[in-house]
């Protein structure tokens, strides 16, 4: 028993580094094919609004349209969400093969899978093309840094954050970013159609 506890303790001590290399090893056979700029390299794990564990590498082969939001947001996020819905609708009309539309929460402490699911229902984003993700605090920060999204908690409920919608190709490489609200969506839609193919 004593030995067991000691082993556990030592394992915990070493875990910070070995976790990293474990995930490196896990994906080592894929490394050759992965583009150097691919988000599939991200080691972080996420939970979907259905409560399933997922990594970005599980989304391999699909174009992704990604935005970072939080569900308690009353200012910019409803407009960001409206933008996403409009982009989804128009891309589908333009004949794009359906990419995945991903909404990543910048508030993983409050945005549980249950809450994300409610948000999806309330915004009629229930089809398979929609995916809501809860990460860890560190995983969310890392992902935001890949997108160059800035955010800061400004009170217990609210965040200040950049409004950026990003498009990734089938290899997980960032191809396009639309910054700001209430802009024309034509450019991002034609980019999605170009990447997804018809």
């Amino acid at each position, binding site marked *: 028993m004593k030995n067991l506890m000691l082993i556990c303790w030592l394992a915990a001590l070493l875990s910070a*580094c070995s976790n*990293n290399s474990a995930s490196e090893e896990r994906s080592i056979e894929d490394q050759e094919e992965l583009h150097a700029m691919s988000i599939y390299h991200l080691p972080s794990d996420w939970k979907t609004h259905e409560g399933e564990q997922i990594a970005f590498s599980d989304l391999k082969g699909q174009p992704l349209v990604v935005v970072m939001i939080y569900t308690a947001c009353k200012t910019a996020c409803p407009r960001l969400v409206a933008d996403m819905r409009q982009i989804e609708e128009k891309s589908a009309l333009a004949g794009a093969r359906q990419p995945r539309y991903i909404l990543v929460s910048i508030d993983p402490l409050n945005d549980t899978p249950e809450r994300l699911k409610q948000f999806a229902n309330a915004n009629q984003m229930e089809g398979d093309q929609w995916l809501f993700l809860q990460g860890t605090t560190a995983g969310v920060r890392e992902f935001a840094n890949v997108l160059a999204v800035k*955010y800061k908690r400004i009170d217990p409920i609210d965040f200040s954050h950049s*409004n950026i919608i990003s498009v990734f190709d089938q290899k997980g490489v960032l191809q396009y970013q639309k*910054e700001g609200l*209430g802009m024309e969506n034509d450019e991002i839609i034609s980019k999605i159609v170009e990447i997804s193919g018809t």
Partner: protein
Amino acid sequence: MKAVILILALILPLSIHGQHQEMVPVTGGVYTPLYGTSKEQVQVADFFLDAFPVSHAAYLDFVKKNPEWRKSEVKRIFADERYLDFWDADFSFPESLAQSPVNHVSWFAAQAYCECQGKRLPTVDEWEFAAMASENQKDARRDSLFNLAILHSYEKPKTYLMKVGTQSSNVWGIYDLHGMVWEWTLDFNAIILTGESRNYGNTDRGLFCASGALGANDLMNYAAFMRYAMRSSLKARSNLATLGFRCARDMHAEQGQIAIEK
């Protein structure tokens, strides 16, 4: 059971001091950051901070043990082309740089280095809190000579060639927070300056929720303003000659979340 506790007691201090470099305890407190969450003061919890910036020699140890962070192996999504720009190969840099602060490292690389030692990057608030100390005062921001010395050091060229620990330490026993290199912080991407968005018309409400809540609380502190402006201009995969890092860790385990969330 007693034996286990004894072993814990023996290992715990080692895990703090036995790693690459010495950490210094910083007793937290309340301070008003330049760009806060409004005019409010920020509570900084007690934390440990590396006494010195990470050197090229220490970084070499890290890349030897972690192949994915070698100059030839690093994934471009985590570090741009200038990663370890002064190194001529995976394990080789000019001898004279060994004890100088490592530079041309990205945020992802710096964060991975700290994680491998069971540490993390300091938050902006922790860094600024520790960096407002002079040789004999914990908060020397009203000391005009202290501020002037920092501003002068920003004008000196190539301070990244200096050796770590050759300047005098501040009152906490921490060296080289000023006068050598800028340093990465965990939440540098929480720095949102208004006026970055002039391409989008004369209001940036379209870019940032509640951006009106942010503003300068202490414009007199021009040196701090420069640091915040520098941070806000960074991308996480940037590698600059003038940017290095050091690591931090929570003093009390349960405070980790608070430090990061704030």
